[in-house]
């Protein structure tokens, strides 16, 4: 396992951003972590990078417990993990040239031979599809897509074992999104790094992720192989998310039954008792308001869901309210 998160909790004061989350990512595996804004998915990424201090739980990176490692002790381990940020405009130091930004991880990990640094930066820029004349440019001279390529080059130049990608394309124009997504897919195949891909958009990870985990209010409500999630979502929330994504075929799009969720995500200050989703779930019944369903997998296939209605012989269908 490259990454193992066990019962992670992160509270910001009274806000329960992440509230008991476990997940694992194997070598070379891409896990899509999907959730609405406010579900705590970005906080998970920050905890993995140790950009914030977890409240409790454990995080193991390549077999080593990093949960409460000091800043200094964490530094050498940063060879193994880097991050691609959502906002391409605030993630690059405006005072550094592109060359310097991409070289920084090398310089900070004691690769100081100038010719080697220059060679590796050049090779990395080429791999992310940036021309060599970009080296001397500054971030404000680049487009959003180009900046995100710089961010990718910086994250990958040390050939880390794990890359956390926090909504890496959601701030980009739709036309640029596809090319950056394809680039990430190609680089992942070539370099074989594991990836925690955080997104609010299921369709973004459909062709990239090996497995998907769906988050709701700080917890995972369903996880499983990507194809299984798309073919047969088990949790009513996942079903609602999938029904909201448009289908490219107009005939199918018209026939489709949409599940419209009422209301907003409840406040993570005070998550609802019982099942956290019961306030918006079309199938909720008395039990849901009292008992919190655990993530379990009665139907097998490595596809657990946290819903009372998922049993060995039955899967709920949120499109058919009781």
């Amino acid at each position, binding site marked *: 396992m490259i990454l193992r998160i066990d019962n992670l909790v992160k509270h910001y004061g009274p806000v329960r951003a992440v509230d008991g989350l476990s997940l694992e990512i194997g070598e070379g595996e891409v896990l899509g972590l999907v959730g609405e804004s406010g579900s705590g998915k970005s906080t998970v990424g*920050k905890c993995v*990078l140790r*950009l914030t201090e977890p409240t409790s739980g454990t995080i193991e990176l390549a077999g080593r417990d990093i949960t409460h490692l000091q*800043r*200094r002790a964490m*530094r*050498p381990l*940063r*060879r193994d*993990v*880097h*991050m691609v*940020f*959502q*906002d391409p405009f*605030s*993630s*690059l*130091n*405006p*005072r*550094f040239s592109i060359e310097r930004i991409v070289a*920084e*991880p090398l310089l*900070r*990990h004691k690769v100081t031979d100038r010719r080697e640094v220059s060679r590796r930066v050049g090779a990395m820029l080429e791999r992310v599809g940036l021309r060599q004349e970009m080296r001397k440019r500054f971030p*404000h*001279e680049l487009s959003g897509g180009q900046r995100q390529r710089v*961010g990718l080059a*910086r*994250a990958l130049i040390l050939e880390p074992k794990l890359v956390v990608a926090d909504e890496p394309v959601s701030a980009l124009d739709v036309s640029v999104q596809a090319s950056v997504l394809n680039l990430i897919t190609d680089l992942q195949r070539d370099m074989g790094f594991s990836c925690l891909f955080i997104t609010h958009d299921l369709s973004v990870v459909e062709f990239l992720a090996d497995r998907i985990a769906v988050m709701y209010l700080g917890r995972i409500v369903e996880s499983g192989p990507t194809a299984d999630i798309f073919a047969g979502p088990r949790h009513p929330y996942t079903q609602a998310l999938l029904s909201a994504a448009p289908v490219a075929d107009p005939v199918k799009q018209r026939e489709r039954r949409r599940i419209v969720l009422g209301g907003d995500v409840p406040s993570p200050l005070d998550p609802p008792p019982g099942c956290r989703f019961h306030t918006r779930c079309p199938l909720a019944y008395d039990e849901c308001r009292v008992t919190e369903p655990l993530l379990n997998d009665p139907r097998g296939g490595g596809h657990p869901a946290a819903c009372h209605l998922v049993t060995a012989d039955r899967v709920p269908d949120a499109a058919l309210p009781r």
Partner: protein
Amino acid sequence: MPMAGLVLVVAFVLLALLGPLVTGDPAEQDYLATLAAPSGAHPMGTDDLGRDAFARIAHGAQVSLQAGVLSTLLAMVVGIPIGLVAGFYRRWLDPIVMRLVDVTLAFPFLVFAVGLAAIIGPSLKGVVLALGFSQLPAIIRITRGEVLAVREMDYVAAAIADGSGDGHIIFRYVLPNCASPLIVQATVAIPAAIIGEATLSFLGLGVQPPTPSWGVMLTTAQQYLSDAPWLAVWPGLMIALATLGFNLLGDGLRDVLDPRSHR
């Protein structure tokens, strides 16, 4: 307008640096021509002791420049590191520093400077120290505010992920990105200190009489306002022009240093 500011500032600096070389001795007295009106021999007239007003203006520019630049430099050199550390590390230091800053900011700048100057004692060194420490709270507050904003930027998180240590992050990421508002603040602080020096000297808490200073000149001129009004006009005009120049220059720098205008 920024160009006009630059011209005024350059003229002021040249006057301070080169003026004393071309003018005569500012202490030389000519009892035959006391309170003389501007003429060929004395382009700005003479004061009650017959000293050449132009020579005194030129030498006074040196005092003003020193008071303005040195006190601002002092405030920056002491204030920026305090603001950086308080804003970057927060913890217990930040609330302590900021409450102290709040307390000192509660006093008007000049009132605070007058109080400090009275304690330190009247001299150019005293003026620089008093004005420098009076500027300190504003510098700390501005630095800290900028640091708070910058440290939340993703590029700082990226720097941590790169494996950077705190020192590297502070000097390579945080400080350079806080620099523009501080440079602009310097162009506000220098003219404030020039006025501050003139005020302290006018009140007798600054530079002492034999030494020419625009504030000292105003004190003298006050007594002869009806007989020799030009004595008050020259130092007043100089203070106004120097202050205006720095302020206009600051406006220009604000535009140039704004990263959004780089495109």
